[in-house]
């Protein structure tokens, strides 16, 4: 399979949009229309089940960003820099996906889709109980698409490119779902794993001596792309770690009033005892 897909990459065809502008345009339209459709369903669903204002705001924000990010691939200007490309990936992985999850749009979507939707979601609901598994899945997807052969494949064919972005959105959506909506201790190792695996990939891109991808401006472009994944990308996982810990605490503590501790001895009592 690897060999076959590898053979699909035709270096001469690297800037696919030059040759098949139509194909490129349609795939980008489709990429943009998908989140737009989800948006529409949400708006209809929100009429039936009212979300809180915060969630509504988050959903609209995420959708706007998603549509813009996906339409952003039209015109092909993204294909000229790995850095811009990486920014697009990180937007999907650490901004749009968690925002979608935090907005908790499931009730609204399911209000429209009915029973079929519930049946479709069920296996994913089940998988989302295991933060470590979704973390591993997401890491595998990220690594898969950043190996040069598949990255260049996505550059060459707009349809592969769409598949790349959809699988990112899907895997990271699932990951953030299992992280942000679950209050278990395993979210911390899952975040650490993600931090380590994206950090490792970023480090490799940063330190590599040779260019990997067909959309490079120069070697600094690749270094910057790697650093964006490594440092700002990692920061989001770090923040998520802090946020999840805080939430965990509020769950597991029956708090006593801290300021009035009855048995706390007075200063004098201790002085005399010494």
């Amino acid at each position, binding site marked *: 399979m*690897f060999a076959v897909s590898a053979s699909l990459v035709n*270096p001469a065809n690297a800037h696919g949009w030059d040759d098949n502008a139509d194909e490129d345009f349609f795939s980008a339209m489709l990429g943009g229309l998908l989140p737009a459709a989800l948006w529409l369903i949400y708006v209809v669903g929100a009429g039936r089940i009212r979300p809180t204002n915060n969630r509504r705001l988050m959903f609209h924000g995420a959708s706007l960003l998603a549509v813009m990010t996906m339409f952003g691939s039209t015109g092909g200007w993204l294909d000229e820099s790995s850095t811009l490309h990486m920014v697009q990936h990180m937007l999907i992985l650490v901004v749009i996906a968690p925002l979608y999850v935090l907005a908790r749009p499931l009730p609204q979507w399911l209000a429209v889709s009915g029973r079929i939707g519930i049946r479709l979601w069920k296996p994913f609901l089940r998988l989302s109980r295991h933060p470590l598994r979704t973390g591993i899945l997401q890491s595998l997807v990220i690594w898969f698409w950043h190996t040069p052969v598949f990255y260049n494949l996505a550059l060459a064919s707009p349809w592969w490119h769409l598949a790349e972005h959809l699988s990112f959105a899907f895997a990271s959506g699932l990951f953030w779902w299992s992280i942000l909506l679950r209050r278990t201790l395993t979210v911390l190792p899952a975040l650490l794993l993600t931090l380590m695996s994206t950090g*490792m990939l970023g480090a490799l891109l940063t330190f590599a001596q040779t260019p*990997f991808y067909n959309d490079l401006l120069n070697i600094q472009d690749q270094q910057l792309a790697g650093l964006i994944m490594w440092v700002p990308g990692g920061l989001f996982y*770090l923040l998520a*770690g802090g946020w999840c810990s805080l939430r965990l605490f509020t769950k597991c503590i029956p708090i006593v009033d*801290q300021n009035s*501790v009855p048995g706390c*001895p007075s200063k004098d009592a201790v002085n005399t005892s010494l």
Partner: protein
Amino acid sequence: MNTNNETRKTRDALHDEFLKVWGNPRGWHALTIVNHTTVGIRFMVTGGIFFLIGGLLAMLMRTQLALPEQDIIEPKLYDQLFTMHGTVMMFLFAVPVLEGLAMYLIPKMIGARDLVFPRLSAFGYWCYLFGSLILMSSLVLGIAPAGGWFMYTPLTNNVYSPGPNVDFWLLGVTFIEISAVSAGIELTVSILRTRTSGMALLHMPLFCWYILVMALMIVFGFPPLILGSILLELERAVGMPFFDVARGGDPILWQHLFWLFGHPEVYIIFLPAAGIVSTLLPVFSRQPIVGYRWIVLAIISTGFISFGLWVHHMFTVGIPQLAQAFFSMASMLVAIPTGIQLFAWLATLWTGRPVYHVPMLWLVGFLFIFMIGGLTGVMLALVPFNWQVHDTHFVVAHLHYVMVGGMLFPLLAGLYYWLPHFSGRMPSDKLARWGFWLTFVGFNTTFLVMHLTGFLGMPRRVYTYQAGMGWELPNSVSSVGGFIMAMGIAMVLLDIVLHFRFGRPAGSNPWGADTLEWATDTPPQPYNFISLPDCPMRHPMWDQPDLQTTIAEGHHGLSEIDHGRRETWGSDPVSGAIREIIHLPGNSWLPFYSALALSVLCISLLTRTYSMALIAVVASLLLLLSWSWKNCVYLEADSAVKPGYPPLHSRTFNGPGLWGMVVTLLADGALFLAILFGWLYLRVVAPNWQAPDTAPLAWLPLLISGVLLTVATFWHHFIVRRLRAGRDDHLQGQLWGIAVIGLAHCCVFIWAWSASSLVATQTAHDAVIAVILMYQLFHSGLAVIMTALQAKRVAYGYVGKTAPYEIAVVKPWWIYTNAVFWLSFLAVIMLPIAWRSA
């Protein structure tokens, strides 16, 4: 009066009964003791002795540098001195002492009778002791390592460091690190699973949070260095190239592996010390700590951040400038959690009614010194400044401010605070104050001036300097200061020695502290508590002042001892609700003998007598396996528990052993990730990377071998599920079946390896693949052996429906072995096809 006598009598009777089960033997048999109090004290005393030795080495260096152009110490010896000073202070003093303190305190703070794997703690101690002795013997023999405490290649490879010097470091330190990792695993599981009834995570004393995060950082942070040491030793001893540019390696890989460990190490040392501060300040401020939850958050985020910042130790090795800019900025992140803690401490002092006893002196000293260390740290994080002062004495001054301020001062505060707990006596106030002021003044005289020496351009690690460069005055001031500091330390030492004889009896809870460790006797009994109290609160000793009495009179849980078992509560990791009774193993020779066999292995590798090494490997394997066999003989003992009590842990599926296994595999996984990182790093960075045109390994036999492994794993998973459902028919036969399939997997694997065209000494490409294959084979082989032993144990009736515990422990190992196989398959067989550069 009569009732008083009665209660005293029952109290003494209980004490005698408990001592029969928990008592420590004397004489030669003291080597068998596994009790955490004894082992913790052994760690601390041994570490303290190494601190004095390390200090002595520093004195020698300061004597040499006091005046220009002295030749008291020749350059070669000087190299050994600074290398050993750093190594001793980092690996033989700082980490073991803090671990020892944690081992001593943690069970007492969480209301447990011992650590969860007592024999492992004893084993860890012996590994530490023997490893340190091997390392120190090199100094006596005059062949000590001389390549700096971070052992950068290529200086430390075979060409530039012939002779056994570097091998002493690599083998000795690895040995000590194994001890550190085992302590990390044990502390993690103990804190999560053995807290007394009702102590939820957020009821734990803050010290436990600090130690929990430190232990997990050891688990994730030490494996990269262990791997680096193994690789460098393989390069030196066998000639497998990893860091040799000509054969496709890269010396910078060593630096990455080293600092991947080295940066977290700074926090591994700082966190427990900060934990001491957070424990002591509220006690002496007479007020609960301000912002408990924010501090916990700060501790956790420090742990996370510290794994992302290693690159800022490498600003001058030629990494891309963009990366320097990013990491310079990212370094500022550390200020946030440290700031949270600092302000919480200040707020606690501000809102409390502080009393200034001796431990508080050391705490104030800590705040002052550590703040300066932090400020120079911010300076060093700025790239241009970093380039300017790189490898000068400024860096030496900075790291001493961080380490001495961030670790030694809080440690001494803690020492003075818990001294009455160790000995039952109070130290002398006058001597203690002399000790503090001499140390404080001496330290600042030495190292504040040393910043200036660095600005004046004096490089580190030079054995002397010419007169007339302007370095004479600051150097002699530093030397004088060093000797003042030594006097201070001597004063502290004198105080400690004298207090055992002349100190006033401390009584119970002399500082009016809030945490459970003060509910034990002072000095503590081996069993810690006669009965284990409910503790759904943060300040048990403040809320229930009579706790010590009620515990000693057996009013709380688990006060039965007539069954003769060493028991403690096993509880839920989050809520602290009781789940089971953990049955702890008792004293044993096995940890001592196993560590002895391993140190024979270490020595024979040093002297390169490989036949001897082989014998030692077999001996230690046999000892460790027989340990695993005998550790569970308690199953033969009476297993009845008092009605109303939860079952013994051997009757459950989710006991401490499973947790220990999972945490061990986390450390193992960190090591494996480091291997994968090395493989990919060399691929994309090494200037002379040579990959053969045809794949060296045939994929089909490997695939078959992998399928066999997966079948075995699934089968094992299946029998655990059946056991859970209460069915154990044909258990033994099934286990044998799994072992046979696993064995077939190993055979196909070995065959695939032997049929390959790998020449491990020729290229880094082949060498790394060989390491991955060895790693896999080790795990597969052990999985087979463990499963076969389980089958035998089923035959003996040790394992089965009523005692399913051990099979559940082996399961994660199979899953992990399977995961490693397929990840290696992806990385070694598939990835090269997909990772062709543009």
